Structures are given as structure tokens and as C-alpha cells.
């Protein structure tokens, strides 16, 4: 992953609106040197890992796995499976739940954010419910969802929906309110009706913020899913983490964490690609 993505404040920033792109994206520094140092850094880290666990035995195997143990756990996970399924089964189970919750949240949250941004009446009416519910972190809904729906998939989708819904709504709403007033006036004086105003002025104008919201939603979806599966589940990567912890199998913990990281990165990249295609007018 390259440096320009690093200060992606939005990712880490919870509900805070992201900084303008110019600030989030640092000017590309000398890629050649940077790439070399970066690669050396990763190689150095891997070497350190080998030295600490295998070369010297400084870190005990029950604390952190050696590269060979990691490899062994990965092989076992891929071929025999762990905690009720192979790597692909468990990874797909988690990804499917994340995508379901995320898509439902986007399909409900973005329209609601649009409504609240366009209609001051809807905003005044719905804002109190938001102010009351927002301070409760999404993870705090997990026990309630389990009480309501049990340990199966439905409870997971509910909490993911909940975690991903709020950033979608808030950022869409902020985006709509941030649409340049002059553009709205320009559309009016050229005879745009309400529908055209919404589809050709307000939505495109809010689109960058909508995507900021979706990125935060996606991140929240993964965090919530992992937590919910750790609290209690029958399948999924969180279940794998939990089982590996109970079996004191650090190698499998590490494998599951790597898989979670890769899936999180991959889905984020996909969303970024969608953004790049849907917003071609950006310089």
C-alpha cells in the first residue's frame, strides 16, 4: 500500500467528515526511493519475526507463532479447515454477512440522508432520534441483537446494518447540505424541476461525501462483524479467532487476523474503484 493513502483521516475518523482530498492525499514523494525503503522495511520485519521466534527462540511459540507454524496453520486451514470450515468457507461466510449488512445500510442510509438534507422538515423531525442513538457505539448493540435474534446470521446483519447505517446517513446529509448554493441557483434559473435538481445537481454534488460515508460504513461493518462473531457465532472468521484463542493456537489466530486484514483491504479497494468510476469529473 502506497504512501498517498496513508493519511486517510476519514477511515479512522469515525463520523468526522473527511478532510478535503488535497490534504488527505499527500503529494507523491519520490516513489523509487520510498518503494525501496518500504520493501526493505517489510522484509526487515519478516526477518525480525524469524529471528525472534525461530532463530533465537526469544518469543515463545505459545505467545506468537514462528513463520513455519504460521505456514502450517495456513495449510491446515485451507485443506482441513478449522472451527467448522475451510478458509474459503469461513471467509465467504464473514464477507457475505458484511456485504449484506453494508448494502442494506447503504440502501437505507443514503436515501434517508438525502431526505434529511433536502427537507428541513424531515431533518428537524428525525434529528432528535439520531442525537439520542448516536452516542451509543455500534458494538454496544451486539448483546441486544443477540438477545433479540440469537447467535445466527440475522443478529450479525442487524448489528452491521446498525453500525454502517449511521455514517451513511450523516455523511450523505452533510454532503447534501454542502452542495454549492450557487449551483442550485444556477439550476433553478435554467429551469430545473425538483426531480432534475435532485438527480443532476444535489446527488452528484453530494457524491464525494456519500462515498466518504460509505468508506466509513464499510470499515465499521468489518469491525462490528469481527466483534459480533467473537462474542458468539457458529461460523465465520471471528469464530475462528475465538476457537483458536480457546485452543491456545497462536498460529491460527495470526492466520485469521491476516485474512480479516486482506478482506478489509480488498473490499475497501473495490469501493475506491467504484468511487473512481462514478466520479470521473474529479481532477
Amino acid at each position, binding site marked *: 500500500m502506497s504512501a498517498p493513502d496513508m493519511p486517510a483521516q476519514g477511515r479512522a475518523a469515525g463520523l468526522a467528515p473527511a478532510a478535503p482530498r488535497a490534504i488527505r492525499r499527500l503529494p507523491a514523494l519520490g516513489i523509487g526511493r520510498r518503494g525501496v525503503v518500504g520493501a526493505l522495511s517489510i522484509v526487515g520485519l519478516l526477518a525480525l519475526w524469524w529471528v525472534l521466534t525461530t532463530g533465537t527462540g526469544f518469543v515463545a511459540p505459545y505467545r506468537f507463532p514462528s513463520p513455519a507454524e504460521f505456514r502450517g496453520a495456513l495449510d491446515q486451514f485451507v485443506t482441513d479447515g478449522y472451527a467448522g470450515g475451510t478458509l474459503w468457507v469461513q471467509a465467504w461466510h464473514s464477507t457475505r454477512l458484511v456485504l449484506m449488512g453494508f448494502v442494506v445500510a447503504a440502501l437505507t442510509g443514503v436515501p434517508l440522508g438525502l431526505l434529511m438534507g433536502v427537507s428541513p422538515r424531515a431533518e428537524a423531525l428525525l434529528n432528535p432520534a439520531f442525537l439520542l442513538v448516536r452516542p451509543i457505539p455500534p458494538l454496544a448493540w451486539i448483546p441486544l441483537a443477540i438477545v433479540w435474534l440469537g447467535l445466527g446470521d440475522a443478529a450479525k446483519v442487524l448489528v452491521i446494518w446498525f453500525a454502517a447505517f449511521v455514517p451513511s446517513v450523516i455523511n450523505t446529509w452533510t454532503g447534501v447540505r454542502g452542495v454549492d448554493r450557487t449551483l442550485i441557483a444556477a439550476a433553478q434559473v*435554467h429551469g430545473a424541476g425538483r426531480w432534475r435538481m435532485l438527480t443532476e445537481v444535489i446527488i452528484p454534488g453530494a*457524491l464525494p461525501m456519500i462515498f466518504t460515508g460509505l468508506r466509513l460504513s464499510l470499515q465499521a461493518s468489518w469491525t462490528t462483524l469481527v466483534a459480533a462473531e467473537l462474542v458468539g457465532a457458529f461460523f465465520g472468521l471471528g469464530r475462528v479467532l475465538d476457537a483458536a484463542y480457546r485452543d491456545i493456537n497462536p498460529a491460527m489466530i495470526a492466520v485469521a487476523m491476516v485474512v480479516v486484514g486482506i478482506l478489509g483491504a480488498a473490499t475497501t479497494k473495490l469501493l475506491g474503484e467504484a468511487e473512481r468510476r462514478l466520479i470521473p469529473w474529479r481532477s
Partner: protein
Amino acid sequence: MKDIHFEGVGKAFRTRSGSDFVALSDVSLTVAEREFVAVVGPSGSGKTTLMRMAAGLDHPTSGQVTVGGKRVTAPGPDRAVVFQQFALFPWKTVRENIAFGLRCQGAPRAKQDEVVARYLRLMNMEGTEDRYPHQLSGGMQQRVAIARSYAIEPDVLLMDEPFGALDAQTRTVMQEELVRLTRREPRTTLFITHAVEEAVYLADRVVVLARDPGRLREIVDVRATREAEGWDGMAIDAVMDLPSFTHLRTHVWRLLRDQIRPDD
């Protein structure tokens, strides 16, 4: 074609401290059909407010504004506005921006294409139709904005310091092009500016506003002189060297300077 009629128009605000602030007081003014009227005034004289009321984006607190005999209540495509900040849709290409108003009217595709092509030609912008606004220079962007407004063939054109955000050279080029365009397709035009030379060069009449409160100071006729001396056939720098031009410019400038206080 229509005229614009301001009848005893005033605009007052209640400020946050509770006192009344009068932005405009009792302005009566008629812009005749196909006439180009420029409004100049110091900042705070309410010139932009005047334009916005004609557009229907602001509303007078006393008096009324009529366009073609009909009272203005809301924005409409019979009165196109060119904004200082261009206000192009960043997510639409040049072609889509120019065609926007026509699409709002439900014009057929063939007609849209024809009008877009005509204005691209008139504005010397052929070949840029598929670019996005951020890929154009400021002068080009404002040409697109002007083309977008002309394309809906509005009865009335309202321009709010359209060249205010351009550099001096581009500005001169745009002034010449606007003269070319307006003499060829004259429309009822209200042109807001704070640049005296621009007003005198472009307009049939120059309206000078005073401030505190914003009100009408004097209306200066330019058209008679311009037509007598044939300005339209000359280059802009040649016109600006003419004694008749300098005379008018100085006159307007004095009207404005009288109101400028040391703290400006």
C-alpha cells in the same frame, strides 16, 4: 422579448443586533427590450441584490419587480443568470452544461446538439465539448457559462460580475466577445459590475448606484455616443483611447468617487 421593470424597489434586513439595515431603497428603473444596462456602484450599494431580485433568487421588501409585465416571484428560464463564480456543474461536460437548460425544457436531442454546436462555434470553443469544467481555464469556463445561459434563449439575461474572477487579459478578450455576441443577438441584459470601463464599453446605459442606503444615483446614456462614433467596429483598446469614452468614464468615475470614504 421582454423588459425589466423595477418599481420603487427596496430591501431591508433585520440584523442580528436587532437594528434594520437598508440594502436598497426606492429604486425605480426600466431596462427596455433588447437594451443592455450596466449597473455600477461601490460595494454595499445593493447591485447584486438588484440582480438577484430580477432573477427571483431574492425578494424585495417593498415595491415590485416585473419582467415582461409579470411580477417576479421565483427563478425561471425566461431570465437566465450568469454568475461571477461561473457555477458550472463540475460533474457535467461542456456539452452537458450548455445543453442543461434545453434538457430542462424537454428540447429534442437534435435541437440540443445543434444549439451546443452553434455556441461552441460562436465562443471559439470547438473541440472542448467532452471536457469537464476543471480541465478548462477560467476564461473558458465563463464562456461555457455564458453559452449555457444564451442557449435557452432567455428573454432576459442577468449577469453578476461575470468577468470579476478573470485575469485582466482574459477579461478584455471576454468583453470583446460579449460585445460581438450581444450586438449579434441582442437581449434584454442587466449587467452588474464594479469596473467602470467595462460598464461604459459594454452598455447602452450605465446605472450608477449610491450606498448607505443603496439607491439610484444617476443614469448615464452611452448608446448615442457609441453609435455616433462606431465603437462596435473598433478594438477595445482603441475605444478606450477615444476622448468621448474617456469623458464618459471620468463622469461615471466621479459619481462613484464622491461616495468613497477614507476607510474603503
